């Protein structure tokens, strides 16, 4: 039994990081349209916010593009021997903490588009669904937990860890749900399908989420200590309050 599990794991591990993306052609047309329509308002909102920021400070265009590039590089980099096999961190947690969820809703889509164009991961018709899970649900949960922890006066490292880790898990849960809705199990329907997808992801995604949480803590601590104009960047990039 253990051996079987290992064989299965060995087979799944190479795909773990990107397994959060739904591939092109994998969603029925109806669901593609549905998720795109659901995501669109958030995207438009994000674009409006960014347009406002950029009109006032055209120089922030470079910074925004660099932020998107940064998130892409994090997600595309194969890091051998971090989790025992090659893995891809998502960088979603870090992005959400650095730039806030609204800006992330646009940057996340840029990252997804480049993953399609440069690496052929994900897809055009599944963009809406992927964006909903990775560029909206994940960042919102990350940001929310971080703010909540700040209110509860938690230790900073603990808050960052929880935020990044749970944000990562949220992304995969939402993806599993999206897949379950699109492809319900023949006998047990959506609920059964969700259990199937979620358990396949959880084999790989839970250790990744933990590692990602740890790395995010490390990076944030180094950045807060070292980036000269730290508060300035946060103020500049975080979207205006509602």
């Amino acid at each position, binding site marked *: 039994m253990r051996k079987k599990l290992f064989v299965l794991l060995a087979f799944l591990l190479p795909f773990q990081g990107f397994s959060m993306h739904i591939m092109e052609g994998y969603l029925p047309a109806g669901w593609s349209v549905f998720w795109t329509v659901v995501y669109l308002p958030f995207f438009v909102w994000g674009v409006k916010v960014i347009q406002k920021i950029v009109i006032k400070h055209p120089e922030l265009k470079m910074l925004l593009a660099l932020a998107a590039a940064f998130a892409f590089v994090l997600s595309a980099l194969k890091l051998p021997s971090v989790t025992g096999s090659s893995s891809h961190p998502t960088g979603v947690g870090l992005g959400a903490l650095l730039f806030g969820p609204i800006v992330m809703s646009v940057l996340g889509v840029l990252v997804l588009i480049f993953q399609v164009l440069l690496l052929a991961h994900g897809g055009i018709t599944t963009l809406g669904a992927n964006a909903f899970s990775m560029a909206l649900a994940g960042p919102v949960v990350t940001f929310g937990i971080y703010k909540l922890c700040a209110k509860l006066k938690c230790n900073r490292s603990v808050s960052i860890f929880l935020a990044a880790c749970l944000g990562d898990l949220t992304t995969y849960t939402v993806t599993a749900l999206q897949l379950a809705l699109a492809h319900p*199990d023949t006998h047990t329907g959506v609920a059964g399908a969700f259990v199937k997808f979620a358990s396949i992801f959880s084999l790989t995604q839970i250790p990744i989420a933990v590692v990602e949480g740890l790395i995010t803590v490390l990076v944030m601590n180094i950045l807060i200590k070292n980036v000269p104009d730290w508060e300035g960047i946060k103020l500049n990039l975080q979207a205006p309050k509602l």
Partner: protein
Amino acid sequence: MFISEQYILRKPIFGLYSMEKFILFMVLLNCALLSGNLYMHLFLISLISIGFLTHGIDLIKLLRLIALPSGFIVLGSISIAFSLHADPENSLFCFDSMGLCIGLETAGLHKALDLFFKAMAAVMALNYLILSCSLSELNDIGRKLKIPLILRELFVLTYRYISLLFTFTGQVHIAQRNRLGYARRKQSILSVGMLFSSVFIKSLLFSNRSLEALQSRGYHGEFYFRQQKEALRLKQVLSMLVFGILLLFLDNYSNLFDLISHI
């Protein structure tokens, strides 16, 4: 690093302009997505493969190009093929545990196979777009699709910075490996933390200098994008559309045919 640089189309296919390439991509993609017919998907996969083979991609590269996404798609298909609570009588394979029968049934298998080939056909269509269009062309397609300027500017800048940070990250990673940064797991996590933060700090400094460089060339908030002057050619667009409609018609027709034969 990037897929379009690993798999280079040495000859342009049909000599299409950027927007025409996009239309062909949409035709191929829609044929894949709108059809539920296995033969249609196989036809599309082979058609695009032949296109690649005759335009500068050798067989080994083509197989690698196909293998790349098929891993992900297989992964997803497995979970669709297997069913919880399957009926042990009708299962091809059943794995009992805690009173559950996690099993494989013919229906699930068919569904998974259909989905696998559908996704492969769609991915091949996507590969066509990726391999045949440069980033400037994609940007130009975006302009014709009326994507807001700010998004296209961010798109182009992001592309440039991705290639820069990619190279930079790769080199830092080598430098860390040379100094045993990834010899053990605990060190690996520390090293990755350092890697990311150094890339981030480098990015910040770089964005400042890059801005100075742009300002010194008179940047006032807008970039120059080259526009393709070529208008859409009616003949090409029409033949692509006819091709697509014909395929979908045949597809429907064969479904009808199936339906009739069933009755």
